[in-house]
């Protein structure tokens, strides 16, 4: 199965500093090897696309790490390569993640000129105490300056869209605190908000602090209340929840991330990046192949400089696993899982079995609904989504 258009994820792992709660593929190094990294990315793109049918590129996402540390010239080089291969679609969404702490005035203008249409900034909080608690490199002033920059670029049409990340459910954070952060972000004119419940991930410094009792564990009730409150908090600015943690004005949903949640294919390059491409086996029992690059930047660089990719994960996703993933990711969306599209990929019998599980789960009052051919979770039950998924996936 060949996709009619592609999504491409490009990972840039380098950060100025590692945050306490972060478990992403990152590397905090003193001197970032920008040129070397760019050459390796182009090498990996060449290797990975060798066996793929070129098709127009609908979305590109530069994630990290802190890709705003890469520099507009490098980002532009990568975009030109992609345009030469499949062609960037006229309405392509090209997103760059940026970190307020390392953005200088005018940086975003540079990226916009290099072909970035959308910027996603990790604001996390507009409260000085909480930013310190989260170990962020930036302060409130830097966050506000970045938001103001985004507002200006959006107003002038230099960016087509923008997004800001906030963290909620941080110990000590009240509902009023969250409302203050939301207002501060959306007042800038940013049409998209990602609001994440603080999660204590295994292997992070935060986990160590929580386990040693140095830091309070995030309060489940407060997080549940704040999850429920968010749609109301963002509504005055015209935003709606379209995914558990994502809110947007209509037309500003993150299309790249939607590709993940809808089960589409995407190409991924860079240290630790994960992609999902048509099955290399061409075996009809496989929905696709997922790969994950090694998370060690030296190992990843060395391999590409030797002319090969270094993967830590390579698995053919069979149809049952694909259905599980589609339910798991699709139910995160307000639009739910399109069962007709799903049956096209995994066959009608599997979807019928899924419908049967749904009926059984409903009998046990699991909050899952069938709206026509869409499987959905009621807005009030979003905070219990994983339990729903366990009941039906």
């Amino acid at each position, binding site marked *: 199965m060949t996709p009619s258009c592609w999504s491409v994820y490009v990972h840039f792992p380098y950060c100025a500093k590692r945050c306490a709660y972060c478990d992403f593929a990152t590397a905090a190094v003193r001197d970032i090897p920008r040129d070397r990294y760019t050459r390796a990315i182009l090498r990996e793109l060449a290797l990975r696309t060798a066996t793929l049918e070129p098709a127009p590129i609908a979305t590109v996402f530069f994630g990290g790490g802190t890709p705003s540390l890469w520099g507009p010239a490098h980002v532009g080089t990568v975009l030109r390569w992609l345009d030469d291969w499949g062609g960037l679609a006229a309405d392509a969404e090209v997103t760059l993640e940026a970190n307020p702490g390392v953005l200088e005035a005018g940086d975003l203008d540079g990226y916009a000129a290099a072909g970035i249409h959308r910027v996603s900034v990790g604001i996390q909080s507009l409260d000085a105490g909480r930013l310190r608690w989260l170990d962020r490199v930036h302060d409130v002033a830097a966050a506000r300056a970045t938001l103001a920059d985004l507002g200006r670029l959006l107003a002038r049409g230099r960016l087509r869209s923008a997004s800001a990340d906030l963290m909620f459910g941080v110990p000590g954070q009240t509902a009023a605190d969250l409302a203050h952060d939301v207002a501060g972000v959306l007042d800038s004119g940013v049409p998209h908000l990602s609001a994440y419940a603080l999660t204590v991930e295994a292997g992070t410094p935060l986990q160590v602090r929580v386990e040693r009792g140095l830091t309070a564990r995030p309060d489940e009730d407060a997080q549940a209340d704040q999850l429920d409150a968010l749609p109301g908090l963002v509504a005055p600015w015209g935003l709606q929840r379209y995914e558990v943690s994502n809110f947007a004005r209509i037309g500003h949903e993150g299309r790249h*991330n939607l590709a993940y949640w809808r089960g589409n294919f995407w190409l991924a390059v860079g240290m630790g990046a994960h992609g999902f491409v048509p099955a290399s086996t061409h075996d009809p029992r496989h929905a696709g192949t997922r790969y994950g690059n090694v998370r060690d930047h030296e190992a990843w660089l060395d391999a590409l400089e030797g002319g090969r990719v270094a993967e830590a994960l390579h698995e053919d996703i069979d149809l049952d696993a694909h259905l599980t993933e589609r339910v798991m990711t699709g139910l995160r969306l307000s639009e739910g899982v399109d069962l007709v599209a799903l049956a096209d990929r995994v066959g009608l019998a599997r979807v019928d079995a899924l419908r049967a599980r749904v009926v059984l789960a409903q009998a046990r009052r699991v909050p899952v609904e069938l709206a026509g051919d869409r499987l959905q979770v009621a807005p009030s039950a979003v905070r219990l989504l994983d339990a729903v998924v366990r009941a039906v996936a």
Partner: protein
Amino acid sequence: MRAEHIRNFSIIAHIDHGKSTLADRLLERTGAVEARDMQAQYLDSMDIERERGITIKSQAVRLQYTAQDGKAYILHLIDTPGHVDFGYEVSRSLAACEGALLVVDAVQGVEAQTLANVYLALDNDLALVPVINKIDLPAARPDEIRQEIEDGIGLDASGAVLCSAKSGVGIDEVLEAVIRVVPPPHGEADGPLRALVFDSHYDAYRGVMVQVRIVDGRVARGDKVYFMYTGGDYEVLEIRVRTPKEVPVDALELGEVGVLVCGVKSVRDVRVGETITHHKRRATVPLKGFKEIKQMVYSGIFPVDSSDYEQVRDAIAKLALNDSAFTWEPETSSALGFGFRCGFLGLLHLEVFQERLEREYNCTLITTAPSVVYKVQLLDGTVMDLSNPGDLPPAGDIDFISEPIVRATLHTPSEYIGAIVGLCTERRGAQKDLRYMSQRRVVLEYELPLSEIIFDFFDRLKSATRGYASLDYEFLEFRRADLCKLDILLHGDIVDALSVIVHREASYQKGKSLVHRLQKVIPRQQFDVAIQAAVGARIISRETVRALRKDVTAKCYGGDISRKRKLLEKQKEGKRRMKHVGMVEVPQEAFHAVLSTDED
């Protein structure tokens, strides 16, 4: 082989004192097993036996040994089960022997389990060969241990053999002592056949393999035989001896031990303790000591997923083929659906059975809390046997309930008398006797309700006496008691599989602690779950498992999907082990919450 060159013996030892290692060494020394084929604990063939260090099935091996007197001997080593649940099987295995090695650890000395089995051996008039093992340990104190054996058991230990089964020191001396001390079998070689059945097991190709010891006469292939207690006629199709490889032989003579294959279809047709004689030339009197096996403990076994019912049924049927002490019949529970009511000798028997179902047959099971059998006298004059508390008729129909009482014999060093008296009193025991066997050794006899000792009595006893006390019990009678049914309600509905019969005086305390423990094991659900304990219509305790407020992953992007899917699959596996009882998801361990009485 003439009987005077035969020696039949078993090994008595406390757990960890080296019984299996010594048996391995004896097999190796007599050439029965090549060192290269040696697998530790050769005789304990089941995984569970090896892991728990206990022997469940009896095994007998034939060893050829040329002694220092230049004569060739045949030694039969009969390995016996080692747990209070299997006391009767132990006694029959010992009855097949004339002697036993009493293995004592050179550091730890005489311990409780050793003593209990020593008394069984002495009851069966066995000659004991004291063996002090692990003498190569730096802390070995053989002289003191010798004194302990003399003081504690009253056995002359001056000739005790010193050995180290691990390093192979003293193994010849052990074998020589067996020849010297254990008497040869005595019986009537020309008399009518009497063969003692001390175990049997099922073989898929040959049917039941019957382990026998020839007490009188001889048996040959082709003989027509008669089972004196159960009354069956059979023909001896094959005779085998284990060396430990099975070797066919033509006949078994007086004193020999071997396996008869005689077309018996089910292990239930051959009882341990049976006497086999010839069809034509019958013995007049069967051998003493036959007892009907009685299941003491009943438990429901249910598949977690009701579509596995047939798989579980077939697995139970297969295991039952080899377990004559086990009974089963279909059972339905409103909470758990279709399953089986199963009878066991005791809790260990139950646990081992359940573990084998799960491990060897890959069944996912819920077992309900074990129950004893009660006699319920109804007002209409009828008496019902109640092995499932859920089946108790309404209180208005019941005249009274009787519970099984056992006579328990506890051997203990005198310093633990206080602890044991306290434990037995707490368990509604009545002291019947207290005797000093020596200055330090005491025997206590108690009448105790069986229901009070099947749960954690043995564990409590062991911890209260640091393992030094031993427990043996036998059924005495049914006795009227003030008993009532304690029901558990989840989310407003009675869960029949959680009901227990309790003494009325203890019902409040039991209900409270049971509810408390259930609150800990029942996971949070999407709604508040009330857990209540009730006697009749009266609620005596209540706790709530608060509804889960938040259960959602904050971020799930491209790089997370494989990892999250695998986590989800793992969680679903855990969920499969949960049972939906009405609306509530209940984990397996909830059904055993009633077993532990420790407050934590």
